[in-house]
């Protein structure tokens, strides 16, 4: 055993200790991150849609919740609002969605042909529209105004022209417009 060897093993020990410390810090960072995601998911209920629902895109216009007369916003009996929309090359129907401010809103949407996406700018509303499946997204707007709603997923050559709009209006205005029943969109406003 030479002095060199002793020195070598001592430095190896130092190295191993420093490595362990760093590895521990790295693991803690990751556990905290995953923990935060779990907390936000469970406590704040910000989780993806729990159920997988399917629908036949070639029959959307014939029957079911996505027939044309059912597209748009509707005020439910409990004061919530439900919006139905579809995406197709290269537009959304309705092209402009009208909703009230400060109200729980459920967006239910699907695609009639290829994959599209709905993104409402300046909000966290962001979901994919995959043909054959129904996307459900909960939303709530705290400010009135007009928001742009581009298609966020490539859907072939016309993708860049596929921009919808969301009009967030006053609660009582919306209630007045919804009085007659039926589905609302920005049309006629």
């Amino acid at each position, binding site marked *: 055993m030479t002095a060199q060897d002793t020195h070598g093993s001592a430095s190896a020990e130092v190295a191993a200790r420093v490595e362990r410390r760093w590895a521990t810090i790295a693991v803690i960072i*990751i556990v905290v991150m*995953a923990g935060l995601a779990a907390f936000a998911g469970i406590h704040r209920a910000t989780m993806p849609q729990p159920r997988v629902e399917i629908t036949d*895109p070639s029959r959307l216009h014939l029957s079911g919740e996505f027939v044309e007369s059912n597209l748009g916003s509707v005020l439910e009996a409990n004061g919530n609002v439900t919006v139905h929309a579809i995406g197709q090359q290269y537009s959304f129907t309705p092209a402009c969605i009208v909703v009230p401010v400060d109200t729980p809103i459920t967006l239910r949407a699907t695609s009639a*042909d290829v994959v599209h996406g709905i993104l409402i700018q300046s909000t966290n*509303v962001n979901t994919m529209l*995959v043909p054959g499946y129904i996307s459900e997204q909960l939303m709530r707007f705290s400010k009135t105004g007009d928001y742009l709603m581009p298609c966020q997923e490539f*859907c072939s050559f016309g993708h*860049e022209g596929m921009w919808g709009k969301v009009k967030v209006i006053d609660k009582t205005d919306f209630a007045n417009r919804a009085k007659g029943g039926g589905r609302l969109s920005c049309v006629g406003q």
Partner: protein
Amino acid sequence: MLVNRKLILAHFWLAFVVFGIALTLGAWQMFIRSPIGTWLSNPELYYRSLTAHGTVMGYVFPTLVAMGFGYAISESALQQRLVGVRWAWAGFWLIVIGSVMAVIPIALGRASVLYTFYPPLIGNVFYYLGVVLVVVGSWIWVALMSINLRVWRKANPGAPVPLAMFANVAGSYLWAWTAVGAALELLLQIIPAAAGLKATIDAGLARVFFSWTLHAIVYFWLMPTYIAYYTIVPRAIGGRVYSDSMARISFILFLVVAMPIGMHHTFADPQVGAGFKFIHSAFTALVALPTLLTVFTICASVEIAARLRGGRGMFGWIKALPWDNPMMLALAFSFVMLGFGGAGGLINMSYQLDASIHNTQWITGHFHLIFGGAIVIMYFAIAYDLWPHLTGRELIDLRLIRTQLWLWFIGMIVTTFPWHWVGILGMPRRMAYFDFGDPAIAPQALSVTFSAIGGFILLASGIMFIVILARGMRALQVDAGPYRFALAVHEPKTVPVALNTHALWVALMIALTLTNYGYPILNLALSSGTSVPAVYVGAQ
């Protein structure tokens, strides 16, 4: 001991030529979608270009670099002639044929489906067959790496596998397995539809198959870069690897946890339930671990070099680093971009934060920082380091090399930072143009312009890179000596079996993939009524 230099050079040259073409397309795309070049009236050209850019940058370029570098590692780390040279050439030619086969339908506008395919959009069948040939060609390389290691093991029973080769083979296995997802999607779903055998396709299932490939492929791109961090950089700057076993653990972790995380690409998709999304989110967090370990080990290795050069003090050693050495510069730039890109990645990994940036320009910014930034700049460094050994000629113009690296770094920052910003504002990605006349979009015009300028800086840097290599083919002849890899501070005399073989980790990788993907895939495959009509590109 580099015997098959022609083979390796062929891979590198083809890689860099296609890279140059794809880079030019990228800069052109940046230009025509910005307010400074709004002359394009036919967005179809944009999507052809985007498909070619993505297909080359995603599949062809990194695969060729990994293969060429892998052959170089196999010969020089194992000190053994490459076994199966003829097969290696066959793999190379398969990639050439596959690339040409894929590019023709793209150029004709019959395959504008981008490199992520987007079923039920279906392009020309030859595009997909071309991609399959590229992958099959690379699988030959995977087999050869495994065989060469086995031959070496027989000749050196029980000896520690050189770190570079251990990592190289881990990378090849990762690629072999991650490519299976896209292969299943292509063979079972897309190609039958493209060939007209089927008229419908389950778009949701296809997206899940693709997500299997879509994230681990990034770690396959990353492998040559990490091999360079551990086994080239410390030697090139006169230092040593801080820890050999830490390096092995990092590569093993990539192999095991990089695979089963891809579903975070479907966070906003309706066909995957919340539970599996959460599992994949947690695994995505876990894959930060090997990178955090690497950052530590490489910083420590670099510190050793600095202190050997007389560096002192808590931070004073940083000054003592050989900053005029291109390898040092490349490493520093790569780490900075990896830092920003990685932080962005951790944000993408969280379902809650992802909702605000999903499919926006933020994502484009993130993966360009990681791939185009952190990864590709080390590909440059690898080429510079290997070139004299491959050509037998010296690369003399270090100043030009440093300028090239600086330009790449600046270009990448100027391109990607504005993308992150407009992404937060909600600018969607993959747009051929924007209506900057719309008052809601007009404020983003400046950011898009900056990105376009960044694109041209990158193009200039890429051209310089190719010129430097080409000039290196005609420079003075030198004897570069044998190609060496960095030594560890404590060279391993024996390595535990678990850190010297891959079998256990490959088994874990497969098992984790099956648990993380098996149920969702089976569930989708068995449910009926989810197939939708295929939409053929270019068929009017």
